């Protein structure tokens, strides 16, 4: 654990306590069983704690506390797989408006993000792949405004979001981001039902007309920075989930008896448990460094974010896989939590670029 300031330590403890009291993993099961993507009442509590506004400037009703602070909260929420639009709204939506929004756009949206009144989703992936360098969705000039055409899929948290931030390539130019209301004419949303039970959707844009005020300034550079806020925050959430998968498994090794012994006394299992611990140690170092680098606007932040997201993907998948394996038959049942972590690990890895994507990005940034 990083060396935290008193305020950061308090924020983390507050999040841990809230998760324990209000959002144990049974809460996630309850939402999933009810067929919902998330529980609006629970998200209202999250926003009430101030977490939706961690990145929002104080003038707009937020805490302006940095992405490291948001990462501390998401790590705790990741422990019990809390399903909420917090990452999409507070990490991605808030950073997009902070970095690319005009004064008027910020005043219109940031206070409502901080209060929890609106949730946001980033519509960037197409044809099921994360490839922000090739955005097929087009933005054509239409008087003072724009017309958007394209299909986005998957849009994570896009089924229920109150505001869509859409990546589109301007004809004859580069890609940039547009603010689009999901109820605008020409927008069609179709919810997916995915293995992790979270909100995801396909969103079609058929000649959607938006005014000139919809464009966020910054182009591809803005997209990169906004994505990196989301990726680092997601890596923190995944670190929390992986840590919990590991700790639950390690506890099981100390209680399950076979052949007259605790199975945790078997060296084959001990060494695999230590291997998980080693990956968690490395992943934590990378995640904390990435979050701190974004807050410091350090020149190597992109490489650190890709390092963190790649490690988080590999480590979460390792810990979830071992969680199923070391629990044996019970780990294969719907009744046990292991499957929930296993499914979430795959979905979280794919979100905002999987490990392979980030190894390649790290390679290009480094000149390999």
């Amino acid at each position, binding site marked *: *654990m*990083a*060396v935290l300031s008193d305020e950061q330590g308090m924020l983390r403890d507050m999040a841990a306590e809230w998760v324990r009291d209000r959002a144990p993993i049974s809460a996630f099961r309850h939402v999933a069983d009810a067929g919902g993507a998330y529980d609006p009442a629970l998200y209202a509590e999250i926003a009430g704690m101030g977490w939706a506004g961690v990145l929002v400037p104080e003038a707009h009703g937020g805490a302006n506390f940095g992405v490291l602070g948001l990462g501390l909260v998401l790590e705790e929420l990741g422990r019990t797989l809390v399903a909420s639009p917090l990452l999409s709204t507070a990490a991605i939506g808030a950073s997009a408006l902070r970095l690319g929004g005009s004064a008027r756009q910020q005043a219109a949206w940031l206070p409502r993000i901080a209060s929890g009144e609106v949730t946001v989703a980033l519509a960037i992936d197409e044809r099921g792949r994360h490839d922000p360098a090739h955005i097929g969705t087009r933005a054509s000039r239409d008087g003072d405004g724009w017309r958007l055409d394209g299909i986005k899929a998957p849009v994570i948290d896009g089924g229920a979001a109150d505001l869509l931030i859409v990546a589109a390539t301007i004809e004859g130019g580069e890609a940039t981001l547009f603010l689009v209301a999901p109820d605008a004419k020409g927008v069609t949303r179709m919810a997916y039902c995915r293995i992790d039970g979270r909100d995801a959707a396909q969103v079609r844009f058929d000649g959607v007309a938006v005014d000139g005020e919809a464009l966020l300034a910054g182009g591809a550079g803005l997209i990169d920075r906004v994505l990196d806020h989301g990726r680092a925050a997601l890596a923190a959430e995944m670190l929390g989930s992986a840590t919990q998968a590991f700790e639950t498994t*390690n506890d099981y*090794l*100390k209680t399950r008896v076979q052949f007259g*012994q*605790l199975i*945790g*006394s*078997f*060296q084959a299992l*001990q*060494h695999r*448990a*230590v*291997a998980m*611990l*080693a990956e968690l*140690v*490395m*992943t*934590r*170092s*990378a995640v*904390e*460094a990435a979050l701190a680098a974004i807050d410091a606007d350090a020149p190597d932040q992109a490489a650190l974010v890709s*390092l963190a997201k*790649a*490690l988080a993907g590999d480590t979460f998948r390792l810990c979830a896989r071992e969680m199923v394996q070391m629990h044996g038959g019970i780990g294969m049942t719907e009744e046990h939590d292991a499957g929930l972590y296993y499914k979430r690990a795959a979905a979280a890895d794919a979100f905002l670029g999987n490990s392979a994507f980030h*190894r*390649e990005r*790290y*390679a290009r940034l*480094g*000149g*390999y």
Partner: protein
Amino acid sequence: MGDDAALEAFRADAREWLAENFPPPLAHKNPVPYQNDAPYAEADPDWQLWRTRMAERRWGAPGWPEIYGGAALDAPRVRILAEEMRAIGAFNPMKMTGYTMLGPTLLEFGTEEQRAQHLPGIARGTVRWCQGFSEPGAGSDLASLSTRCIDAGDHWLVEGQKVWTSGANHADWCFALVRTDTTAKQRGISFLLIDMRSEGVVTRPITLISGSTHFCEMFLNAVRVPKGNLVGRVNEGWGIAKRLLQFERDSLSEGRGEGASLLPLARSRVGTDGVGRIADGDLRSRLVAHAMRAHAYNLTMTRLAAEAKAGSAIDALVPVVKTLGSDVAQARADLAMEIYGDRGLGWTGADYAPDELDVSHQWLHARAFSIYGGSYEIQNNIAAKRTLGLPDPASAR
């Protein structure tokens, strides 16, 4: 002057002194040959000069009390000094077995007489130490060691054999684990300081797969050792040894993720494709994966150092860090050899450039990283038990 200003002033002083006193020919040289091989080091006048200057400046053991030859620097200043040395490719010439392992042990467990007798020579780099722990029948299961130490009235009488004793053939002194009680395992072991010039001490170098003869066998034939050379109490040497092995693991984990990037080497020796990527796509993937792990490992070392400074206990992670570090360093040696291709397979001779021979020998040497100082498997056993709280394996016999 505030704390930060005082530290920055110290940094400026250190930088200036190092610039004036560190012999440039030693810059970025691998310190291992100097630290391991006495004849190699003594034959290099630059090394001699550097050792003497560091001894006079008391920066070979910068954190030790002044009466023992140190400079009594606090932890932030010790760290700054190390950073400034690393920045110019300098190394601490005193950083040998005596400094990294025995020094901290004597500071914690030694008598005043033992400290006064031994620490100044370590701090000045004039006395070389070796570690007499492993035996033919006691490798990973170190506590089964059987070198006997008998109370002979006015002295101890030691009889037995040690093995894998690094640098024993050039050492002046040895700190050894010896058996003082044959009826107990861990509780029958004592910690003894042995003068290598004593009658009955015989060393014999072992040639390794890399060609190195740094490790030795050491025979102890009825060696008489003064009573005052026992550290701690009789039969309490195992606790001291475990503490010392922690110091060793700490020192073994340092620098594992360092070394110049393999990227320029790969680009020049393997070539690049039409868009400037390393031409061998499979090798490129593995180089990147390695670079990322080395990066994460270095971030881990930085993070744990910061946490330790802030007062968190990080001892529990030492065995994990050791295995991660040996993994990273071994992967690097494998990749370097692959990049060199046929030029990385040279054994000796003028057909091969020094850097080419270094690649093959480093590759061979690197296998030892996961064996010495407690093998990969032993580190995992320790982490399973102490860090994860997993139960002891059921007795095999």
